Every structure is written in C-alpha cells, then in structure tokens.
C-alpha cells in the first residue's frame, strides 16, 4: 500500500503546488492593479504639475504682467515695433 500512499502524496503535492501557483498569479494580478492605480495617480499629479507650470509661464509672458514687473526697473513698452532682419 505504500506505493498508493506515495502516489497519493505526490498527487496532493501536485494539487497543492497548483494552488500555490494560482494564488500567486491572482495575487500578482491584484498587485499590478494596485500599481496601475498608483501610477495613474502619479501621472495625474505630474500632469497637474505641468499645467500649473504652464499657467505660470503663460501668465508671466503676457505684456500686462511684464509691464508691471519691469516698471519697477524703469522700463516701459516701446512705441515702435522691433525690426527683424533676415540675412540670406
């Protein structure tokens, strides 16, 4: 009977290892989902940061903001247009 017993134990071990693999796979998938969620949040954060920065740049390059900042230094907008010279 020890033959059967050994076979039974091997079978049990086989089934057990299947269980382990299955549990590991499911856990790994769940972990990935958590990670995706994390990355999404990070992405969202970075995008927001980018928009904040862009907003700051856009505001500061406006003539009205520049005029305010430079007035302190005694600079005023020119009444004449700049001349662009293209040399070919």
């Amino acid at each position: 009977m020890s033959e059967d017993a050994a076979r039974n134990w091997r079978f049990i071990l086989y089934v057990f290892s299947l269980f382990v693999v299955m549990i590991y796979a499911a856990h790994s998938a769940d972990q990935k989902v958590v990670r995706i969620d994390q990355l999404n949040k990070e992405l969202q954060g970075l995008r927001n940061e980018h928009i904040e920065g862009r907003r700051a740049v856009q505001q500061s390059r406006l003539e009205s903001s520049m005029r305010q900042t430079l007035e302190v230094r005694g600079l005023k907008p020119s009444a004449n247009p700049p001349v662009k010279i293209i040399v070919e």
Partner: protein
Amino acid sequence: MLVAAAMLLFGALISYKLFQIQWVEKGQLEQSALSDNRKLEPIEAKRGSIYSADGALLATSVSSYTVHFDPTVARESLFEAHVGALTDSLAQLLAVDARELEKRLRKARKNKDRYVRIASNLDYGSYKRLENFPIFDAGRGKGGIIVDSKISRKKPLDPLASRLVGYYLDEGTRTYKVGLEGGFNDHVLQGDNGLREVQRIQKGLWKPVGLENVKEPKDGYDLVTTLNSNIQDITHSTLNQVLRKYRAARGLAVVMDVKTGAVRAMSNLTMNADSTYSESYNAAIGDLYEPGSTFKLMSLIAALEDKKVDTSTTFHAKYGQYKVYDKYIYDSRRGGYGPINLSTAFAVSSNTAFAEMINEGYKETPQAFVNRLYSMKLHEPLGLPIEGEQAPLIRYPGEKGWSGLSLAWMSHGYELLMTPLQVLAFYNAIANDGRYIKPQFVSEVRRGERVIRRFDTEVIHPAIASSKTITIAQQLLAEVVEKPYGTAHKLYDKHFPIAGKTGTAQVNYQLGKDKVDYVSSFAGYFPADNPRYSCIVVVYRPDKNDKIYGADVAGPVFKSIAQKIYATTPFVDAVRLDTQLTQAEEQVELKPLIQVTPIVSDQLTQANAPSLK
C-alpha cells in the same frame, strides 16, 4: 443505529439547505453577490482642452483635491508631538487661525469625529505641500489624512476671454452651455464615457474583470481657437483701465482679422457690486443696442448705392436742427455746422445731415431703404457656434413700431437694434473691400497633433456694395481721424493710420433728460491704407460728469490696442547677400552686393518703417 439515523438526518438537512441555496434563493443571492462584489464602472473620458491660436492653454481639466482628517487614527504620542506644527502649517496654507484649528481637531479627536474637513478644491501644488505636513505625512493608515480628488475645469489665462471660453455645466435638470465650452461641447469637447466590469479586491479598490472593456472610452477632441493671447491681454488691460477710469457700467472690445474674420480678442467686462470688473456676460454677442452714429456708415452705403447722394451733395439743415413732422433732430453741436458736404457730414457726424439724407432720399419709398439694408444682410444674425446671439431688429415700413419719423431716426442709428459683433462684422466688410465674412472663433478641431477638422472663412456676402461706394466709404472713414474737424482727430497718429467712426448714443432718453445715459463707441480698422485688423469698442454708461463722447472714451481704447499691436508686430527686412569673386589677385576680392528685399508681408506699413540708426 441512533448514530446512523442522526447522520442521515444531518445529511438530509444539509441537502435541503443546499437545494434551497442552489435553486430557490439563487436569484437573490446572485444579485447581491454581483452588486456587492462586482459592478459596471464608467470609464471617464477625458474632456478636450481649448488652445489659443498662439498655443496658449485656455481651458483644461485638472484634478482638484479635497482633504479630510481622521484625528482618531494617530497615536497619542504622534498627535501630541505634532498637532501644533500641523495646525501652524495649515494656518499658513489656508489662511485660517492656527489655534482655532487646533482646538477643532482636539475636540474632534475627543468626540471620535472621524471625518473633519480640512480643505476643499485644492490645486495640485497646495495638495502636495499639505501631504508633507506633520501627522499628514504618516499617510492614511497612521496619520489619518483622507484625500479625494475630482476633475474640474481650469482656465490658466483667466480672466482673459473668460466668458468667451465659457463653461459647460450639467446639473441633470438643466445644462448650462456658455461660450466655446458650451457651444462645442457636444461631439467635440465632451468625450464618450466607456464601461468596464470591475470586482472588489479591497475596500475602495476595484480591479477590472475580463480582458477588454465592455465599452471603450472615447476622449474628447481639443479645440484650437483664433484668439491670440497677446492681443487679448492688450485688449483686456486697456479696456479695464478705461472702464475703471470712467466708472462705466460695462464695456467690451473685439479685435478681428480683416481678411479671415478670425476673432483675435474679445473682452467683455461688467461692473460688479464692489466696482471691480469681471467677464460675467458676453455683451459683444448677446446685447442688442441702438448703435447710434456708428450706423451712419450703413446709411451712407445705402444712400450711395441707391444713388440718393454722391460726394458732392450738400446738406443744409439750418441751426443744427432738422424737422420731421412736428419733431426735431439735433446735431450734437449747438447751432449745427451750416451747409456741409457728404464727407464733412460724416467726419463731424452730423445727425441732421444724415436725417436729411435718408428722409429726403427715401420718404417716397421707405421700403427701398430697408430693402437695401436687408440686401446687405444687416437684419440677419451672424449664425455663431456659441449660444446667446440675438437677431438684429430692423423694422420694415408698416410693421408695428414704424412711423413717419423712422427713416430720420434710423439714419443715425436709433429705432433699430444690433449687437456689437454684428456692427463690427459690417465694418470689417468695408475694411475687406466689400467682402462680408463671418467672425470666426475656432480654427481647428484636433486630437493631439492630428487635425481632425479645419474651419475656413465663411462668406456671408461676397460684395455688399459696388467697389466705388466701398472706396468712398473707406476714404470717409479715414477722414474721420485724418481731418482736423473729424470727431476722432485726437486719435490721429502719423506713424500708423487708423480709420473708423465714433458713436455717442443716448440710452434711457424716454425716461427724461436727467435719466439719460450714454453709450460711447468706436468702430474701425487699421492700418487704414492696408487694413489688417478691425475693432469695435463699446463703453456703456461712462460717468456723465466726466467724458462721454465716443472719441474720448471708446476711441482711446481702440487707439491703444492698435498702437500696441503695431508696436509688437516686427517689421521684417530681408537682406540678400550676393558675392562676386574676382580672379588673379593675391587676395580674393569680395564685392558684396546688398539688396534690400522685403520678402515677408509681416510689416504693417512699409512707408512708416522706423529707421535704423
């Protein structure tokens, strides 16, 4: 025996229970399992962003964060050690009292209140800072910080063009569609939400089930507008300045590209209760007003086209008044101007001359006047992609409201209603040599870099009048500024020529002389010799005790905008360098041949180029 019976009974009970669960309660249980553990979750589609023509971001979706605090989570040691520092930091960030806040948190901790609101609608930067505050930096599990984010719309260039960019709000029972966000919401900006099946794996955390989504989300498209952020900035700040100076109830300014109809700037400022101004109503598109003297251009064109007058016609209204039946029309200058010709009458904006022009010219057949106006499409709305445009009101003879006085009043812009944008579109047509084109707000619909749809210039009428008439009108518009007697002569600048018409219309005149208010306007284009931009400025109810005339209030805004556009558009000089090599000398001789060839027509006025010193 007894044991066997007991086991049999036990077995029977189990089978019965199994049977019940499997067959009888199957429906209910399946439901609750599905609803507790699985659900169909919408996948939010990203809303498209709105850009200006020069690439600035006008509207986009961002996350805004709401932070709550569970004061019971932190351990006694952690809480006591850092609550002071936390409330100090919070006080600085949120502009609240630190000690009050500390009291609140302590009280909440004592009362086991697990959900204390700290701040809502924080932007990302503030949220990140807050995350690093003492106690909060320990996270949700150890510190008790609870963060929720939601998507909200942000306008990085606020308040510039804020009302034109607008917003879209769906409250279920009502949707609010304002500006471009509203007008281009359906099928463009608003995407299509997707659907997927999800299964609960942790409290608050769901995992998607299956390989594919039940329905894929379709993100919204981006919009590229015709607005130029620099011209918008100039327009907004100039207008704001003037409105504050004259304490006007409202003001607007619109700048259009003459050849294409692209709206480069649109500013609508209304006075708030605290005397500041905000973009709360798009009057340029939605406000019907009596245009007053700016309508004289339309009357002029009609009279010239119908050959009722020509440039040599003289007007004789005596003492500055013109009588129609038993009523008088007065010039703004007491005593009038004496006999004047057509161009002078336009330049000085004589009400009597125009009343005479239209009344005498059309009194036998008044419908001819109105038909001529209709033929120029003045009675039709522009057909804008934004909600809120009002249709003009130009009455037909015989309609309710028409009287024997109507011709005389309509000649100088009363008894009819138009929106400022409609008036501007007509002036633009004159600047554009008679080609009446539609004002355009959007140039492209895009997905990222890919252009999905392009919007071209739409022609309302290819030629509203004969070229002879247009040329005369253009000349007269230039003389309003050029001639020393022109109402807008103070706007004259030798560096760049502007053309246009002043308007000083009365409102509330039916309520009596002391209730009268004024609407000061100026409509025109620049440079007069080669029109590039057309612009209208309307200022409602400037301080009566201060200046009220179109040339004094609205005109300077126009000039300032024109001047700044002139000053920021580079004059381009292209230089070609040709070299000739001569042989047989020890040194190679280079004979440069320099030619000045303007290649790009970027410059506003060739003749008025600033000299290089």
